[in-house]
């Protein structure tokens, strides 16, 4: 197994990542539930990670993977803080429907 991309082809990964990313984006737009929107964002992040790894393999360069590593760390931090915010929002409003959060409306 010299290089997997010779067997599968980078374009397949690209398609896959794009599809996954778009599903994530669709989810964010489609749903109003903050937690599910959160999950959708995770999907999008993973789509990007996947593509990074794919290109890392293509270039045979470790840096792409290092980046993924960092982005995972960021994602973890983000989830931790984000969920904490959601919890406090839920405490205050009794719901996590995003449409209820319109305090910034101009």
């Amino acid at each position: 197994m010299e290089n997997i991309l010779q067997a599968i082809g980078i374009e397949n990964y690209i398609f896959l990542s794009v599809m996954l990313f778009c599903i994530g984006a669709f989810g964010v737009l489609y749903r109003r539930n903050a937690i599910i929107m959160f999950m959708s964002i995770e999907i999008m992040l993973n789509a990007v990670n996947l593509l990074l790894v794919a290109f890392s393999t293509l270039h045979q360069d470790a840096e792409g993977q290092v980046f993924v590593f960092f982005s995972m760390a960021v994602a973890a931090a983000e989830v931790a803080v984000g969920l904490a915010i959601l919890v406090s929002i839920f405490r205050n409003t009794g719901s996590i429907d995003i449409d209820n959060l319109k305090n910034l409306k101009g």
Partner: protein
Amino acid sequence: MEKNIALVLVLAPFFGFLFNVFFGKKAGKTLVGLVGTASVLVSFLSTLFFFSALNANPSQPVVVDLFQWISLEKFNVNFSFLLDQLSVLWLLFVTGIGTLIHLYSISYMHDDENMNKFFAYLNLFVFFMIMLVMGSNLVILFIGWEGVGLCSYLLIGFWYKNQDYNDAAKKAFIMNRIGDLGLLVGLFIVAYVFGSLDYKVISEGAYNTQLVSNNSGLIALAALCLFIGATGKSAQIPLYTWLPDAMAGPTPVSALIHAATMVTAGIFMVTRMHFLFDLAPQILDLIAIVGAATAVLAASIGLVQNDIKKVLAYSTVSQLGLMFLALGLGAYEIAVFHVITHAFFKACLFLGSGSVIHALHGEQDMRNMGGLRKVMPITFWTMMISTLAISGIFPLSGFWSKDEILLTAFHSNIPLWIVGSIASIMTAFYMFRLMYLTFFGEFRGTEEQKHHLHESPALITFPLIVLAILAAVGGLISLPGNSWLNHYLAPLFRKAHEAHHLDATAYALMAVATVGALIGIGIAYSKYIKKQEVPVQDAEMKGFASVLYHKYYVDEAYDVVVVTPLKKLSHFFRNYFEVAFSETVFAFGKIANAIGTQGKVLQNGSVGFYLLAFVIGMASILVYLFLV
């Protein structure tokens, strides 16, 4: 040596001014008057020194160069003085008459609480007048020119509690400033053409035919502008209306500033710049016409005035018109001659009227005078001499100078001669009207006034006597055929002006003039002595007399044509333009506000909407970056 004396000449009145400003209140009235008079006297004595020096050595005028003042790219203006025949002559009667009037004022203004200020202003005026006369270039002249205007403003409005007087002062200053703008522009043109403002350089340039022919249009324009300046200061049409109003000031001021000295500054300037005016014959014609018109217009207004000082004021305007007539005819030395004689008799007349007003405690209306001959003999006789002089009765000074002017006019332009003669007849009439109403008949004032009638003290009568003598014999300096004045001024003029020969025409004209004057006197006699007429009250005036009394409604016309539109314009600008500009600026703020109001709809708080915008935005960026 000469430099130091020249500085003394200039600065003596200025020190008088400083003294009276800073120590006047403490020094007491006597000292104030003394210092004020002495400082002018010092100037007079210094002038005498230069006069004798010049007589000894006529071809060498004294030039005192002090320091560089204004520097411009092409030339510099130096602070320097020139003492030649013309300026010394002018200085003589400015400081001479100035001294007399100062002397007179000691008594006249003695009861005024601000006497020190009066003397300070008077000294300052003399200082600026000396500056005007002595400057060796037009800018120094301009300092004096504006400076005397300022002093005139201060002195007309001397009794500043009265807003009418203040209005008169303001009017004088503003009218003068209109002329000053003309003078300033004339200065610029001269500087542009000749590359200097120094009289000497300009006169040399004026004889440079190449330079002159290249710039003939500009030179004429310069002459015109300078003449506009002169009309402001010397009260000629169209800027004469300030002078009668200027009589609001104390009478010595009227005598010194508004009769003898300041108002002749225009004639001085034109004479100074004669080489320039000689190059512009069309402007000289204009000057002659304006002068003649002013002479007759002012004389006609003077016919019906009832305020004793107003009569004299219009007489001054009229006489100044005659001087300008002479200037316009190119007879500069005759104009100068008339300036001098006029200074004598007009100063005497004003001081005399001041004496009368003093005796009547401020009464100026001739309808309330009369019969003063017996109570005030010295005032009467001195004024009588001057009146005869101004009317042109042989052999008093006015006869000679007026006759010269009319003679010159007759030789060059008959209509101008006719106009001038009419003005002279009118002069004789209104002057004798003044005399008859004031000094003859019965006293028409209140009992209270009658009780206090008295001859003025010696300090007032002494200057009157001196001036009356001068008014009587002043003609001697320029008798026809053998004119000392022409001879004295000859170094100034490159083309010598030969004196008129005493031929038959000359004698005939003299006779005509005398007869004219006698006619004027006769009419006045029949009207005011024979018929004992007293001018009617203001409201009863009818027809042309009313028009005359209201000065041809010129002030009203100026009001309608200039003042009111300016006020309206100011109102309009303030209420509309300013608001419009201001609102335009605020409009930008309002636009931003409106955009904000509309834009805030976009911030509707719907996360879905934001995300959609985000996605679309990102998509467009991608398209722009990679696909286009």
